[in-house]
């Protein structure tokens, strides 16, 4: 080699070295950053692992904040925040009955930023439950569960249950008073099937309640085996399961044609290509990616009401993410996550109350453990799952409340639900129930007739009344769902604000006897 060649090699090295940031960027991304042309914008989304869950173009309806309210995104982002803060907390948390409480206190008081992380984790969990519920309401009231989205609605119901399970197992871990008594009550609710088997007299031969309880807590009483089981559920099992379901949920949204929207635009129902029926491979479409509409590549045929995902959707997502992060951070700066006294197996708090999202259930459980803790939740989950299979009417997808008729059904159902519940609960509080009148009444009668079963009966009556009156499954479903929402709200209110020591009725917390608050 000659000297000049060597000199050339050196300058190539220097040249390339200087260009490293740019070549790295080019290697990282398959397009210009930021993408300029429509085609590049599509490629930016389509060729990126993290973004390719999105279609490259979406209907402008999708980015209208008043339609989705960003609720689904909030669920995802809160879940991500929970994942990150949760993993960080695992560094200090000790899943042992003798160390758990101290380790949580340690995080709170002896770790820099520990209190903040724990607060973010707890408030995001509360936030996620709330937002998941609101998201479900949004999806329901806009009719977005209808074909082809029925399956995704079912997955959504599963996700709701998993969210609640994650929250429950989460607040058990500090092993404080709340945790200990929630474990006890939760385990006994699982065991409350025995109430039914007892009532029909088969417990001696077959006791699924006891089996269930022992499986969950790894014994007959709460202790180390229970804590480690709930820890395992909270940090390994449930997160994996919910991640899979979230993945499927998001994937199905794309596969089912993106977010639901009103069928105002013919293009989306009618194929662009009149030969579709005869086309040799109708399964192979490019429509999914929204690169091209129809089955055959027809370039440049965008309708006016779609917008490119980059940047519109991504900006919206960024905004929602920042909103979630900011809201959780602010909450966590000003309000500390609750931590009660160390678990005390001989004295529960009085009253021993669950977090707000379970207080409606706690109110129901105070009529009958089996009915309130197992039967009503099962009927609710089953009913929610069945909604899209009973309501097959395909009009009004993407229309809030299906228009004015729906709005009037919502109003009437809300009023009916509210008044019937208030009257029923007031009656129960004033006069008691069967057990207070006839102490010897057999449990099977209590299981069959208690305020919780009466509520189900009243709600079913109303559902069929609306169905008969309107002849529309959609309107009947609106009635049933509204009753569910109102029922949840009223029972939660009663459990939260109107129940005091020994679960007695009080108008105000300040009237509670013998207990003073600072």
């Amino acid at each position, binding site marked *: 080699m000659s000297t000049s060649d060597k000199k050339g090699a050196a300058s190539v090295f220097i040249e390339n070295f200087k260009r490293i940031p740019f070549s790295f960027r080019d290697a990282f991304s398959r397009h210009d950053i930021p993408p300029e042309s429509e085609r590049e914008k599509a490629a930016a989304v389509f060729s990126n692992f993290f973004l390719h869950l999105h279609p490259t173009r979406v209907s402008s309806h999708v980015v209208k904040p008043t339609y989705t309210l960003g609720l689904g995104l909030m669920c995802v982002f809160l879940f991500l925040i929970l994942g990150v803060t949760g993993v960080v907390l695992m560094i200090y948390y000790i899943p042992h009955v003798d160390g758990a409480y101290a380790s949580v206190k340690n995080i709170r008081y002896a770790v820099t930023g520990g209190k903040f992380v724990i607060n973010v984790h707890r408030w995001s969990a509360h936030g996620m439950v709330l937002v998941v519920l609101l998201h479900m309401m949004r999806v329901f009231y806009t009719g977005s569960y209808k074909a082809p989205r029925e399956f995704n609605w079912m997955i959504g119901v599963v996700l709701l249950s998993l969210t609640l399970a994650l929250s429950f197992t989460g607040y058990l871990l500090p092993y404080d008073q709340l945790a200990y008594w929630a474990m006890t*009550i939760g385990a006994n609710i699982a065991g409350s099937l025995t109430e039914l088997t007892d009532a029909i007299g088969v417990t001696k031969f077959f006791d699924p309640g006891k*089996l269930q309880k022992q499986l969950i807590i790894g*014994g007959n009483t709460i202790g180390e*085996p229970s804590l480690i089981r709930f820890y395992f559920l909270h940090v390994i099992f449930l997160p994996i399961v919910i991640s899979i379901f979230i993945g499927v949920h998001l994937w199905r949204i794309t596969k089912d044609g993106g977010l639901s929207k009103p069928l105002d635009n013919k293009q989306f129902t009618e194929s662009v290509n009149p030969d579709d029926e005869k086309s040799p491979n109708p399964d192979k479409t490019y429509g999914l990616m929204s690169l091209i509409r129809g089955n055959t590549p027809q370039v440049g045929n965008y309708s006016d009401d779609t917008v490119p995902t980059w940047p519109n959707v991504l900006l919206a997502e960024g905004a929602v993410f920042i909103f979630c992060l900011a809201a959780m951070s602010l909450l966590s700066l000003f309000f500390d996550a609750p931590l009660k006294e160390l678990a005390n197996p001989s004295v*529960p708090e009085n009253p021993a109350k669950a977090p707000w999202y379970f207080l409606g259930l706690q109110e129901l459980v105070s*009529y009958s*453990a089996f009915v309130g803790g197992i039967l009503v939740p099962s009927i609710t989950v089953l009913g929610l799952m069945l909604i899209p299979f009973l309501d097959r009417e395909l009009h009004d997808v993407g229309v809030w409340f299906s228009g004015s008729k729906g709005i009037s059904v919502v109003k009437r159902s809300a009023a009916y639900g509210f008044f019937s519940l208030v009257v029923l609960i007031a009656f129960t509080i004033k006069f008691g129930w069967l057990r207070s009148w006839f102490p010897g009444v057999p449990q099977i009668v209590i299981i069959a007739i208690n305020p919780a079963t009466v509520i189900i009966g009243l709600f079913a009556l109303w559902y069929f009344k609306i169905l008969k009156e309107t002849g529309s499954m959609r309107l009947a479903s609106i009635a049933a769902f509204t009753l569910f929402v109102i029922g949840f709200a009223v029972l939660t209110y009663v459990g939260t604000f109107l129940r005091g020591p*020994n*679960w007695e009725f009080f108008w105000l917390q300040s009237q509670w006897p013998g207990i003073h608050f600072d």
Partner: protein
Amino acid sequence: MDDGEKIDRRTFIEKAGFYSFWLTLAASVAGVVKFLMPDVFDEPSTSFRLGKPEEFTKDGGTRLEDKNLMIFKDPEGLYAISAICTHLGCIVGETPAGFACPCHGSRFDKQGIVAGGPAPRNLPWFKIYLSPEGYLMVDTAATVTIGEKFKI
């Protein structure tokens, strides 16, 4: 097969494979459930000492906090009532009328008989007996009928 027809080898292998798959799956699930259920629970003994009979001279009640048990004595004898609510396992507190549960409002009278609320059963009375060494013992795994007191 059903009609005594012969099936060919391919079908047989297919079916055999298919059924062994499900069988393996079922066995694995059963194994996991069995794995989750310990063979031995590491739990404290159900019977324990109360003390010498001479110690119980005064009438009245005491609570054994760590056992969630209430011991009462009256002229007729000694009796032990469970403090664990039969509804969902909270610990009942004493009220003028008897016992009340802080969790969902079950009420029991002084004998532990359900007087209101969701509790499906009365508070159990546990067996009291004299050990060979002369100690009063309670067995929380054995119940006696309500009202049956142990004469000292």
